[in-house]
């Protein structure tokens, strides 16, 4: 069993979830409530990873992070080493790759909050932040949890982007899916099966528990209510 790969993958998924909760929620809020006429462009950019082959995203990220790019050079002069083939590089790639999975369920849930409640909150003197924390967030908590769970599950199973920008360095960038791929390449089907089965069972259990809890506690399922 590839324990180091499993631990690395869980760590990656947790870090990505936390980062995306912090940046995905404001993006979802902005997309829901902005009157900007070019909003659809922002929506398209956020949704791009849904349709783009992971290798394409990974390729451009690799180029953007590489020593030829200003961003890559800046990072290297700052940290002493490049971003590609490091855990930090994996995090950056995974955050971009999972962005739509965080933003879309949250934006869908925010949009379902009755606008008169938001107006009522404003008239009662609440700032936008207070309105968000006291009214919008509690009423769309189902969508927020969905976003986090999907992000976690999606990052667990990521392969293409990780392979492109992380490579296959044990303990640094070798995630579960890459370990399985390695096993299959080496014709070690038994080992591949052990890890694959674990990933399958674990993902299914996480989703089932969270979906079940989510339904019974909040009883609001923004995607299909």
């Amino acid at each position, binding site marked *: 069993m590839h324990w180091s790969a499993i631990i690395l993958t869980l760590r990656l998924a947790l870090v990505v979830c936390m980062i995306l909760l912090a940046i995905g929620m404001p993006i979802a809020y902005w997309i829901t409530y902005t009157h900007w006429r070019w909003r659809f462009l922002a929506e398209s950019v956020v949704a791009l990873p849904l349709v783009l082959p992971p290798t394409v995203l990974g390729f451009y990220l690799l180029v953007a992070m590489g020593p030829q790019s200003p961003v890559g050079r800046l990072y290297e002069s700052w940290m002493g080493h490049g971003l590609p083939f490091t855990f930090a590089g994996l995090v950056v790639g995974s955050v971009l790759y999972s962005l739509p999975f965080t933003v879309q369920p949250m934006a869908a849930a925010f949009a379902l909050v*009755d606008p*008169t*409640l938001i*107006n*009522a*909150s*404003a*008239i*009662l*003197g*609440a*700032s936008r932040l*207070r309105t968000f924390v*006291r*009214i919008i967030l*509690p*009423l769309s908590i189902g969508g927020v949890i969905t976003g986090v769970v999907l992000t976690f599950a999606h990052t667990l199973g990521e392969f293409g982007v990780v392979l492109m920008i992380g490579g296959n360095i044990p303990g640094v960038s070798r995630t579960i899916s890459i370990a399985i791929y390695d096993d299959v390449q080496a014709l070690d089907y038994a080992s591949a099966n052990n890890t694959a089965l674990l990933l399958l069972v674990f993902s299914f259990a996480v989703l089932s528990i969270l979906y079940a809890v989510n339904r019974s506690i909040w009883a609001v399922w923004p995607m299909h209510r």
Partner: protein
Amino acid sequence: MTAAMLSAAATSLSVRVRKILARDFSLEAEFEAGAGITMLFGQSGSGKSTLLSCIAGLIVPDAGHIVLDAKVLFDSQHKVNIPARKRSVGYLFQNLALFPHLTVEQNVQYGLAKVPAAVREKRVSTILESFRIAHLLAGKPNELSGGERQRVALARSLVTDPKVLLLDEPLTALDALTKSQIIADLRAWNASHEIPIIYVTHAVTEAFALGERVIVLDKGRVVAKGTPQEVLDAPRRELIANLAGFENVFDTTVESVSEAQGTMNCHLTGSEVNLEVPLVTVDHDAPIRVAIRAGDIMVATGKPVGLSARNTLKGVLVSLRREVVTMIATVNAGVNFEVHLTPNACCELNLKHGDEVWLVIKTYSCHLVNGDDVSAVN
């Protein structure tokens, strides 16, 4: 602005707004409201809710000037636009907009976030008692009855001590008894606060019963304002006559004028009928119509004698039907008049289809309506 104007605005709301809402529809309204209930009356699509939203700061007018309690809330010329949360406005939404996930207490407290806890609790308990909902404290909005929800929403709006209360048809769905109790509690509260209350409605019965003043809005324009009696009793505009529920509106020409008597003799077009109506100035270039409420016409089964009423018309009862507690009769007296009677009166007169009857109409029950160009009103 002079000092006199400032002091005049101290306890009132002054509104002048223009907002283009569609290519062929714009809101252009101007009015002032002092303490007490002002009914803002108009049919759906007349711009009532938009006007409220402009006052509350939820919609930005294209141009205008809104002053509340000497504070400028909006001024297009000087680029003033105070955000909704700083306007000291109470707003009761049509759907009430109670926060479904918060308890009654949390809902009512919501607008008091910046008030010290001790003061907050006192104000909440006082307002809950004023509106008789103290026992509902721990309940959630979906556990309350319709009337209770209205009271919670009112308490939530008023606990912040707003300078104006805007009500967007909040009571339309309630039964008459609950409605009148809530209005009575609202009046009791306002006796000590004396703020303007703007009550939007499309129901005639509410418009002329609940408020001290009525503003009639039609197609985005204020077409009449005054006390309910003033607006109802002098429907010089056909539009207002239609809005105010005058069942009988006839084209007419002025035959003769008796200035000494203060009356005019009018001929109803296309008939032999003449009516004596009160003397008013009319614009003869515009259409002239006479409006009579169906409930103001009396029915007699024989020719009445010794009456003060100046108009008695002979006719035939052509139809009679019952609508809840009103008998609606149609009498042909040269033209068809709609007449409303109580079922008892109908019974005693033993009225039947085809009966010969006399209609009795007082001069002062006849209202002249001049023209249909609404822009020249007031």
